[in-house]
Each structure stands twice: as structure tokens, then as C-alpha cells.
């Protein structure tokens, strides 16, 4: 019988939910999740320490004071408090030359970007997000650098990849997901037929869901008018909530934010003109009047929208 274990972490003023699923030994699953939970907690705290604009000792706060030196710090393991560590940048060509590891469970696909500091990775991602969304995602807020809007989704995606994927690839569980503040990254082992089911919250009633998204490997993010720490500068006000399904949470989160900022028409236009987004995104959009519209890959134009609610 398939069992699911859930644990909750509170970090960055957000509740994070870890879930592991397996059809074999329920007791082992509980042990497994209790082992991984403190590691994810430590990682999230480390991310908060690094990026919170509200902490005077964070790298973002330093950047706001004009000290951008975190750009050139290699991402040093920080399971222990490592002092500020300036290494000769392992920048340029060979990423492998000064490899540092955050933890033992380092996945291979991450190794390339690992030589960049996390601060630099977020800076690059925020720049990319700004370009992809035609400025509707913007890491500058009120004249100051504030990558908060992209950090959470990215952190969940990274934590999922670092701590939960190894459990799947090593056969310790069938499926693993990590959610935080309503954004979720999921995965399922190839050998399992498990499917994650995610409800899209009704912005008018937090205890109700409007749609259910089923997926195995992917990410779901929702942005709305009431989301905290996102500083969405709105150019349109026709959407009350945007839920996006993409492969990676950092991007799902980015698109959801952009949808709220840009409004439905501009957002559809942006997606239409981005072949990657056009081919992969699902969206559930709740309009200001409460009506729901959605799109699936390759079908972003409003006229082929299935009418909802019926």
C-alpha cells in the first residue's frame, strides 16, 4: 500500500512541506523523512541568511550598501558557519577546477553552476527572468536590488534536487515533493506509477480548490495579489491569481509573478512568443472577476481556451 509521510518546516516566514511516498515499508519512510528534514531546514536557513534583504548580515544587504563582493565568492559549503571566503574565482571555462560541495548528496547536473556563488546564480537568474518576462519580473524594487521574488522558488527547486532526488535515485522512496508558500517541486521514480495531485487554491476561499493539477516530475507555482515578499509591480489588474506548471520551480514562479504583473493579454503574448514556454507551460488564471481561464502547451491563444466552470 502506498503511504505518504509529511513534515513541515518553518523558514523565511513560510511553511515548507516535505512529502515522501513509497509503496513498501511505511516505517522506513518515516525514518527517511525524519533524517532529511533537518538537512533541508539547515539549507533553507542558509538561503535566508544569504538572501534576506531584512538581515543586515546578508549578502543582499551588503550589495545594497554597495558591496557586491559575494558575486565572486565560490559557493562554499555552509553546513557549518564558514567565514567569508574569497577564493580566486574558479570562473572561466572549467567549472570543475575548484569544485566545492554544499553537501554529500550533490547531483551531477548541478556541478556546473556550483562553481558560481549562490549570490551570482541568483543574480544571473534574476537577469534572465527580467529578459524572459520583458521586465515584468524585475529584481530591482524601489531602486534597490531585491531578488526575493525569485529566491524562494529557486531555493525549493534546489533543495528538492539536493536532498530529495537522491532518495528517489537511490531507491529509498518512490516519490518526493517539496512545497513552500504554495509553490511545489515534485518527482517520481521511473519505476513507480505514483502521480502527484496538486489543488489550485481558490483566492476567494483558502479552504477550497478550483482545479487539480496532476503531475509526476515538475513544478507548480501560484502568484496572487496577496503573496508576500514578492513586490510585484503591477501594470495590469485583471488577474487575481496565476498558477503555472513548468518543469522547474524557479521558472514556474517567475512566470506566475510575470502573469500577475503583466495582466492576461500581455502575459499570453509573452508566452506565445517564447517557444520554450509555449511548448511547456500549463496555466490556470483566475481573473479579477472570479472567472477562470487556463491554457496548455501549444494552446495559449484565448480563442481556443476551454471555457471553465461549466
Amino acid at each position: 500500500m502506498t503511504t505518504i509521510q509529511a513534515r513541515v518546516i518553518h523558514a523565511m516566514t513560510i511553511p515548507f512541506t516535505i512529502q515522501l511516498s513509497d509503496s513498501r515499508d511505511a516505517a522506513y519512510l518515516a525514518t527517511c523523512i525524519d533524517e532529511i528534514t533537518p538537512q533541508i531546514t539547515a539549507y533553507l536557513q542558509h538561503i535566508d541568511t544569504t538572501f534576506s534583504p531584512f538581515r543586515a548580515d546578508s549578502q543582499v544587504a551588503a550589495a545594497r550598501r554597495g558591496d557586491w563582493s559575494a558575486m565572486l565568492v565560490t559557493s562554499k559549503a555552509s553546513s557549518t558557519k564558514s567565514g567569508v571566503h574569497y577564493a580566486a574565482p574558479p570562473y572561466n571555462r572549467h567549472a570543475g577546477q575548484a569544485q566545492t560541495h554544499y553537501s554529500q548528496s550533490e547531483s551531477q547536473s548541478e556541478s556546473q553552476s556550483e562553481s558560481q556563488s549562490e549570490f551570482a546564480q541568483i543574480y544571473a537568474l534574476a537577469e534572465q527572468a527580467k529578459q524572459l518576462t520583458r521586465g515584468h519580473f524585475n529584481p530591482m524594487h524601489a531602486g534597490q536590488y531585491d531578488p526575493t521574488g525569485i529566491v524562494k522558488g529557486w531555493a525549493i527547486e534546489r533543495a528538492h534536487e539536493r536532498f530529495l532526488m537522491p532518495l528517489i535515485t537511490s531507491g529509498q522512496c518512490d516519490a518526493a515533493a517539496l512545497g513552500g508558500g504554495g509553490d511545489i517541486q515534485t518527482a517520481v521514480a521511473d519505476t513507480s506509477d505514483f502521480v502527484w495531485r496538486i489543488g489550485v487554491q481558490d483566492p476567494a476561499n483558502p479552504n477550497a480548490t478550483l482545479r487539480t493539477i496532476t503531475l509526476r516530475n515538475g513544478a507548480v507555482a501560484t502568484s496572487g495579489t496577496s503573496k508576500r515578499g514578492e513586490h510585484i509591480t503591477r501594470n495590469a489588474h485583471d488577474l487575481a491569481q496565476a498558477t503555472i506548471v513548468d518543469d522547474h520551480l524557479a521558472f514556474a514562479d517567475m512566470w506566475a509573478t510575470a502573469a500577475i504583473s503583466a495582466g492576461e493579454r500581455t502575459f499570453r503574448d509573452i508566452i506565445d512568443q517564447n517557444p520554450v514556454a509555449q511548448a511547456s507551460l500549463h496555466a490556470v488564471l483566475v481573473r479579477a472577476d472570479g472567472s477562470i481561464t487556463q491554457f496548455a502547451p501549444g494552446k495559449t491563444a484565448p480563442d481556443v481556451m476551454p471555457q471553465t466552470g461549466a
Partner: protein
Amino acid sequence: MKTVTRAAIAVLAGLAIIGDAFLLFIKPHLAQQAGTTGSALASNGTTSSGNGSSANAQSESSTDSNSANSTDSNDSTNSNDSTDSADSSNTESTDSNTLKDGTYTSVASPNAYGEIQLQVTVAGGKITTITTVKAPTHGRSQSVNAQALPMLTERAISAQSADIQFVSGATETSTAFVNSLQDAINQSLNAAK
């Protein structure tokens, strides 16, 4: 006698609290300060050697750093650093707080939507400009798992529905988590054995 004992205990407790506070709040701070100055001083002595490869990696973009270094070195904490800096003998130490002048180009980290490369310019030991040198290219990167394509089911689900594991919404915060839909789901999952 009793009052004397009480007073003695109170004094002891007070001293213990003060001692704890000192150890907890003040001493680590002092130690940290000592630590940073120590490493900065130590880095004056420890030049190059092991850093040869990384020095080469950056030398191509900082060929003119020689003159820049010697003029700017007064700003930095390690004034000894660059006085003897010949072209490629690197003054950079892994413990140094001073960034070597020059232009650093980051390793591009490609993702599904393209890649971004950053160019960081260091002058006078400080990062002065950061520029994006490569715009994202539209091209799906390698492996897209067939399983990764999600499906939308067009059915609304009631709040009490037991068959969802996560709620995606815009309002979830720690303060409002207790008794939230996600909280209820988590609890019912853990209860089901």
C-alpha cells in the same frame, strides 16, 4: 542565616547570567573580529603558489591589472600585496579580503530558457560593474523527460478532498498555516497508516 544563603544564591545566579551573556554575545563577536583581522594579516605573507591555475584562468582578462593593482593597493587592507606583483605572480590568496582587479566572466549555466553569463569588473579591490554578456537563447536544453509533461484535470475539488497532496496558492504563510488546507492534508497523510 536563611537570608544570607538566599542572597548568596542570588548573587551567584546573577554572576552566572552575566557570564553566560558575555560568552554568548560578546566573546564570539570579539573572536570573529580577531579572526578576520588575523586572516587579512596572514594573507600578506601567503602569496600565490597553490593558486597558479586559477590565476591563469583570470589572467587573460586582467593583463593590465599590474599597474592598477599598485595604484589601488592603498585603498585595500593588504597594502603589501601588490607591491611585488609581477605579471602573473598572483597576490591573490584564498583568505584575502581583497579582490584582484580585472574582469571576471562567469561560467554560463544553461537552463531550459537559455543561458546568462555575467561579467564582473573589479577595480580598486571592489566590484564596480556587473554586466550581462549573453542573452538567453531560445532552445530547449537536452533531456526533457516524457514524464515531465503534466496534465491538467478540469475538475474542481472540494476543500475536504483527501486525494490532493499539495495546495498551490498565493496566501500561505507561517502565521496562517495552522488549520490551513495544507496543514490538514499533511496531518491526514501522516495519520493514514
